[in-house]
């Protein structure tokens, strides 16, 4: 459904665009309907940039992003973009900054209505809104007609998902949607993603938290410095990390029932077998992947 | 660092080209004919003589060639330091006239800017010390910056010059003197300089004080101040840091304000008939010497650009942040 192939993103930074920064390097991946793909990586690894490119919020430097047969990066014109957003929507990291603080929170629904459903009657619209609010398990009385600061982060985040559901979307880009939430509420939002998956949505789930990525996703992509370090079915990636970086990352994640010392000891006890990583020439911007086992790829090792 | 300077220079170069181009365009595309105005004053009645002289002066002022040639000739002249000939003081070169006036303007501007900046900053930092001080000094500062330069000049002229008779009311130095390197002459120069200087100083002071007060309050709110307080550092240290850091934006503020300050100097000079560029502007306006006016404009622009560049360099030297960014420090 969504296919990124050899996508690069180069930012020009500094005044006069003097320096260049390669935020995304030769990324290829796919998202199928009903599949949750986690993009995992440390800060600055290019996760959000990929999300933004998929959402058409920023341009692609090279490569292509194809959604249902159409090249997203070549969508030109306002109405074509608008049609694309009927199908693809996003939810962002900070629920508080996703709402314009001077307007009521449900204005996000009204915006969808005025853009996409100008003909729908008030009653129909109300019903539609109540439906989606139900879908995200919110009580309409609690959330409608309120200002964003009167709602909790979890509520806001769920409202945003509801907003996306008003449209007949096929793909949802969820960029760190839970990292700002409290532990007690984030799990609800994650569960909601699970529900959406059941409905056949493809979800691109961006996170820096390995345990969260692990919890919902079918496929995990570990990014490092803009390039894919490792990609494969979630369970494989976590149980058998092949890339040294993935291993390092996993060893540093604080786990609830195992201390770092235990993890280190375990690793030392049965060291993982090394795989041959693909290599590239100096100055080559590509980042090839090697398929180590079925559907499980490792990428280049960048120092 | 050098790259940064190079880029800055590039920007100033571009600005200069734009300024020169605008300046070149104005007399050629706006109504009014400088040559005619010059001949008007010569009161020539014989029509043939008039025509011959028109041709002659058009040639002198380089208005007889195609526009693009005029443009390049203008640039060529500029690089030779030749800004043309004054209409009013024909046939004196504009450059000579301006150069005679520049020292007065600089002599007024530089001390006024530097002193008001230094004193104003300390004043502002002092005001930010407490609520009472803040509430009494601040309005004074605001009223001072809101004072039109010429009005302040008028008040001082009236009170200390005309009424009080403590200071001379016009000119750059006494009319009985010829310039010389002597104490009496220098003292005389200073008495003439003092009131214009004072008026610019006072007006400038308010602005810097307010700027500093705002910046320092902001700095005192900054995380590092908070942290130092949490570690029990004395107020003195925290203030010192805040003052220093607040000073830095004030340097850039200087660059931004330069245009205004120069405008203020021009107006002040006019009030005191101080023989700097401001008075010269007024004279060239009154005598419709647009070539001279253009020349002054270019001079001021060049001056502003140079000053900006100097400020940029100073800023780079004092603020480690810019320095680090330019050398590409890791982060």
């Amino acid at each position, binding site marked *: 459904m969504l296919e990124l192939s050899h996508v690069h993103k180069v930012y020009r930074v500094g005044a*006069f665009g003097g320096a260049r920064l390669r935020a995304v390097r030769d990324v290829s991946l796919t998202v199928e309907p009903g599949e949750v793909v986690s993009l995992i990586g440390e800060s600055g690894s290019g996760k959000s940039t990929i999300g933004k490119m998929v*959402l058409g919020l920023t341009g692609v430097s090279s490569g292509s992003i194809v959604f249902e047969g159409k090249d997203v990066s070549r969508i030109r014109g306002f109405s074509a*973009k*608008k049609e694309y*957003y009927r199908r693809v929507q*996003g939810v962002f*990291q900070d629920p508080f*900054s996703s*709402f*314009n603080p*001077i307007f009521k929170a449900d204005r*996000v629904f009204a*915006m969808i209505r005025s*853009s996409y459903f100008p003909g729908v009657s008030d009653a129909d619209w109300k019903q539609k809104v109540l439906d989606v609010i139900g879908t995200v398990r919110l009580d309409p009385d609690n959330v409608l007609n309120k200002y964003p*600061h009167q709602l909790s982060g979890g509520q806001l985040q769920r409202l945003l998902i509801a907003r996306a559901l008003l449209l007949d979307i096929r793909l949802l880009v969820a960029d760190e949607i839970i990292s700002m939430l409290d532990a007690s509420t984030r799990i609800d939002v994650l569960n909601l993603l699970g529900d959406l998956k059941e409905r056949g949505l493809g979800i691109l789930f961006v996170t820096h938290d390995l345990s969260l990525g692990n919890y919902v996703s079918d496929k995990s992509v570990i990014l490092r410095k803009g390039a894919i370090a490792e990609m494969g079915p979630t369970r494989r990636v976590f149980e058998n990390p092949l890339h040294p970086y993935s291993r390092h990352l996993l060893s540093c994640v604080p786990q609830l029932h195992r201390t770092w010392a235990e993890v280190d000891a375990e690793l030392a006890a049965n060291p993982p077998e090394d795989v041959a990583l693909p290599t590239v020439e100096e100055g080559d911007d590509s980042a090839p992947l090697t398929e180590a086992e079925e559907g499980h790829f490792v990428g280049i090792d960048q120092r | 660092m050098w790259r940064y300077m190079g880029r800055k220079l590039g920007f*100033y170069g571009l*600005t200069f080209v734009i300024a020169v181009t605008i300046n070149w365009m*104005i*007399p050629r595309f*706006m*109504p*009014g004919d400088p040559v005619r105005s010059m001949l008007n004053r010569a009161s020539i009645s014989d029509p043939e003589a008039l025509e011959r002289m028109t041709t002659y002066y058009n040639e002198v002022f380089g208005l007889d060639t195609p526009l693009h040639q005029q443009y390049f000739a203008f640039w060529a002249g500029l690089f030779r330091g030749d800004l043309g000939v004054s209409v009013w003081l024909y046939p004196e070169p504009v450059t000579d006239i301006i150069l005679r006036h520049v020292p007065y303007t600089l002599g007024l501007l530089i001390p006024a800017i530097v002193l008001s900046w230094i004193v104003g900053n300390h004043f502002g930092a002092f005001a930010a010390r407490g609520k009472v001080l803040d509430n009494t000094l*601040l309005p004074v500062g605001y*009223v001072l*910056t*809101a004072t*039109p*330069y*010429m*009005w302040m000049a*008028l008040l001082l002229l*009236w009170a200390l010059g005309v009424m009080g008779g403590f200071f001379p009311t016009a000119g750059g130095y006494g009319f009985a003197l010829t310039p010389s390197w002597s104490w009496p002459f220098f003292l005389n120069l200073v008495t003439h300089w003092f009131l214009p200087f004072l008026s610019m100083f006072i007006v400038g002071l308010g*602005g*810097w004080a*307010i*700027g*500093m007060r*705002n*910046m320092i*309050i*902001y700095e005192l*709110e900054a995380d590092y101040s908070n942290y130092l307080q949490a570690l029990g550092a004395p107020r003195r240290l925290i203030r010192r840091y805040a003052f220093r850091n607040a000073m830095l934006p*004030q340097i850039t503020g200087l660059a*931004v*304000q330069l*245009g*205004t300050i*120069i*405008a*203020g100097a*021009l*107006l002040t000079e006019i009030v005191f008939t101080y023989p700097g560029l401001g008075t010269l*502007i*007024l004279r060239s*306006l009154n005598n419709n010497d647009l070539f001279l*006016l*253009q020349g002054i*404009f270019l001079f001021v*622009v060049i001056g*502003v650009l140079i000053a900006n560049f100097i400020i940029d360099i100073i800023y780079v030297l004092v603020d480690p942040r810019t320095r680090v960014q330019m050398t590409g420090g890791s982060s």
Partner: protein
Amino acid sequence: MSNIPGAPGAVDPATAPEPVGERKVSETLHFARRNPKLLIGSGIVLGLLLLGLIGPLFVTEGPNVYIGPQSQPPSSEYWMGTTSFGQDIWAQFVHGLRSTFITGALGGGIAFVVGTTVGFVAGYKGGLVDEILNMLTNVVLVLPALVVLIVAVAYLDVRGLVVQALFIGLTSWPWAARAVRSQALSLATRDYVDLARLSGRRTWRIITTEIAPNMSSYLVMSFILLFGGAVLIAAGLDFIGLGPTGGVSLGLMLESAVQWSALQLGMWWWFIPPGAAITLLVGSMYILNVGLDEVFNPKLREL
């Protein structure tokens, strides 16, 4: 004369403007009513405005008519005395105040429109557009406005209030553009802006409905500063004889007082009021601005 160093509002372009929800409005009012700077500042400005608006209605003769004895000090009949030709200075004063407000509003308004437009477009669009506009802004910023104005205006044969205001407006916008740009730049990265794009909103609507309202207090403050700056520049131009031909303004009053030797003849009532009015007007605008800043900027609020 376009701005004062570290002017209120220019202090800290990085501080996010405060949201103004229902609660915020009442809170803002609470602080507004308690802020002496705001109250005094706006009181004086409004008072002067009122004087400029209705004052001229109560003076029977035009401002330049010789109606009374010459060179009279203030008296009950001529509140501000008369000029050396027997013009009523009070009449000139109120008319001058009016045109000062007109120049300020017009010149400041034009600068505001140009400045905010440039700032918003640069800040929102980013990239090359930003770079070009930024360059333009810096170029205009570096050129000393009054000197540019003198040269430009000197070529005009007949000058009017509107032309003067236009020229002032066209030269004094850059710092506002700069300030608005940096604000817009930070606001444009807010998630709700992206969300609005995902909702199929056009650029200008995003700027006007999502970004601008969130910096409304900032915009108001910029306008006030531009207004004050325009008044000062206009007074400077008037003073050197480049004012509107055949009009009345506070700057022209100063000019004619000086030209007709009011200083030498001790006619203080001729040159004190116009200068004092300008100072008072601009000064109280600045103070009003600090007040506004203290009201809108939570960091500066005092309980």
